């Protein structure tokens, strides 16, 4: 199971590609054929399985387009 998950809000992304540069695990790539509504190159969270929720892309995305979440086992329902 992947440990982390990120969301990229394409309304805010400005295609700077810093997320992809900073993700040491290579989770984020820039396909080159996907654009934001503002016309910027949109990155893709392409390898979720490698993500360890380190948070770095969420810190360093300058345009507040990324949220990083840590995924944990769902607690067994208390029923």
């Amino acid at each position: 199971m992947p440990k982390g998950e990120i969301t990229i809000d394409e309304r805010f992304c400005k295609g700077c590609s810093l997320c992809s540069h900073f993700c040491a695990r290579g989770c984020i790539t820039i396909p080159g054929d996907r654009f934001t509504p503002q016309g910027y190159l949109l990155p893709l969270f392409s390898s979720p399985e490698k993500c360890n929720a380190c948070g770095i892309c969420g810190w360093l995305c300058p345009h507040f387009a990324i949220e990083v979440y840590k995924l944990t086992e769902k607690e067994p329902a208390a029923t």
Partner: protein
Amino acid sequence: MSRQDVEDRTWVSGTPRLWVRHPAGCRQCPGCHHPIIERLIADVVGDLGVEDDTVFITGVGCSTRAFAVMDFDGISTAHGRAPDVGTAIKRTLHGRPVVITIQGDGDCIAIGAGSLLAAVGRAERITVFMANNGNFGTTGGQMAPTTLTGQVTTTTPGGRDNSTGFPMHVPELLATLKGCAYSARGSVHTAANYQRTKKLMKTAVQKQIDDTGFSFVEILSACPPDWRLTPVESLKWIEEHMIPEFPLGEFKNIESIQ
């Protein structure tokens, strides 16, 4: 949505708690570091739990845009005068508010040098954060006092030469003044530096809270379009050109003046 955790997700990083999201998004250029610095300010204020007391002041420059999005009281000022404005807010309210300015290097140490120096001289209990991107970003990339020797800008088309002076080392300069309790330089061009800089900024605000004296942090900051570099190339420029001239770290950190 972003902050509401579903049962099996815990939020790690992204939009700070003290942030008012504007539908038009960030107004800075792709890859600009200003918003990263603003994120740090929002985080530091949040972490120190002083948002109820904080007044955030912007100079004139690309950081001006920040003041609309920080979720604490804010005010924008004339070019270079944030330290005067901060002084008055702090003193008129008899020392209660936590006063933080964010200024560009041009704003802070070109037109604003007189205002800044006087505030340090008086040991004002305010914190100044200066984004050093080595140029005047807003107006299209002219030389700033921090421009590197040899650096090409629109007003140093042949590269900055000595006739325009030498890169100004602001935290080092302020450290020599008695009124300065804390001065440091950080960067946000790597994840490790991002975390280190956060600590520097936190210490600076803490100095103010502790009533020690004036505190200052310079943060190296990329300006890709005016540097004529891509955002990723800009990181390399910071590493290879700026840091050798502008060493990172603390230059002054005292417990009390005198």
